[in-house]
């Protein structure tokens, strides 16, 4: 397998959300700098229809190129990638996406744990994983994997979440690096982008 050139390394942010996370993105995306030198990957629990209109909707909130992932698409800085409905989203060592239609994890496909773990494996310390609003416990195991490979773990401040259970579950069960409200999250991503 071809190794990624070290010079081309860039930071990656994986954002996982479930119920109540869409409104967070609607508020957060317009606040992001458009000259991002990082890649942002969104994994959201949603209805498993093949309908791709969510990426079109998210595109209206930012000038950063935003699209739904197709199998084996490369990961490049300056882009926002959305996990397609009803597939797990995995990442290969050579910075390309692979899709996977195996069993649901935490009753979910895409599962946040699956993408967090796969991203941790590939990006290690270059990864920031952010867990947003949601009503189940998907994501916590994944954030633990992110910490294990020296990545950075952020949870949305439960008081700022429509559904506080998911970020609260992570905060209660592991060592989260930062707990941020919505503005805090967009400020943090902007600060990554300029370093």
């Amino acid at each position, binding site marked *: 397998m071809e190794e990624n050139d070290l010079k081309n390394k860039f930071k990656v942010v994986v954002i996982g959300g479930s119920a109540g996370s869409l409104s967070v993105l609607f508020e957060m995306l317009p606040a992001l700098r458009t000259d991002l030198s990082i890649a942002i990957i969104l994994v959201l629990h949603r209805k498993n229809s093949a309908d791709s209109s969510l990426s079109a909707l998210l595109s209206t909130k930012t000038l950063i190129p935003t699209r739904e992932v197709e*199998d084996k698409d490369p990961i490049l800085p300056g882009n926002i990638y959305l996990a397609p409905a009803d597939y797990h989203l995995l990442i290969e060592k050579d910075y390309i996406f692979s899709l996977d239609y195996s069993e649901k994890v935490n009753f979910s496909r895409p599962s946040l744990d699956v993408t967090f773990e796969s991203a941790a494996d590939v990006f290690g310390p270059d990864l920031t994983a952010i867990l947003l609003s949601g009503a189940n416990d998907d994501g916590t195991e994944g954030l633990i994997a992110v910490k294990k490979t020296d990545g950075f773990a952020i949870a949305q401040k439960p008081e700022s979440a429509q559904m506080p259970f998911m970020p609260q579950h992570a905060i209660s069960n592991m060592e989260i690096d930062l707990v941020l409200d919505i503005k805090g999250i967009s400020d943090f991503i902007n600060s990554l982008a300029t370093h």
Partner: protein
Amino acid sequence: MYNMTIEDEEIDLLLNDVFEIYGYDFTSYSRASLKRRIIRLCALDKFPSFAELRYRIRSEEDYLKRFVEEITVNVTEMFRDPSFYKVLRTDILPILGTKPFIRIWHAGCSTGEEVFSMAIMLHEANLLKKSLLYATDLNPSVLEKVRKGIFPLTQMKQYSENYIASGGTKDFSTYYTANYGQAKLNQELSEKIIISTHNLVSDGSFNEFDLILCRNVLIYFDKDLQERALKLFDDSLGTLGFLALGSKETLKFSTIQSRFRQLDKEKIWKKMI
């Protein structure tokens, strides 16, 4: 998800064993997915270490069978992506219907849900009698399920909804007999299905087809193996034949793309030369 880390070099060793001893070549499978499947298998079968999984595979042929079953993903459903089946039903089958004889290949068919979906649509279009559906997979145990045509009854509600959304107008329950929590699909649907093992990694073209379906199989392959499989499909399609892939799969990275034209919305391509 599972508390075990496996180094990439260890996976290389294991895949090398499996190839050298048993002839199954998984070395060009998508590594991220494969790694997950191997870690999952270690958890399911409670191997305390990776070395013990490797030893068991090397020494027990029966366990290799289980390894192949669990490493490959066999999740599928009837009429998955109803809009795709609707296009097949309304746009593709009428074209195929003009031929004296219809040959269809379901490559990597797993337990056969999509093959039976196709058989139902051909039946409803009055084309089943002059059709042959080749159902192939590398894994003999999933093909045994295709042969039986028995699926969990609990799935039928979902399949019935998919069927209706795909444009089906009959009562879906007339296609199976329910018994002891199982649904046995009608025998007439199986009569035109030919079942055989075929490995997209190592086997070649074996016939010329009017339609090849290979949905959500290529996602488990790396780009090189995808290219091999796509060339094999190209070699196995007649001119103006159709190739159908999964909803997030694409020809955009392949050299065969220039010879194919994609239909409007769905992941269906027509071979132009």
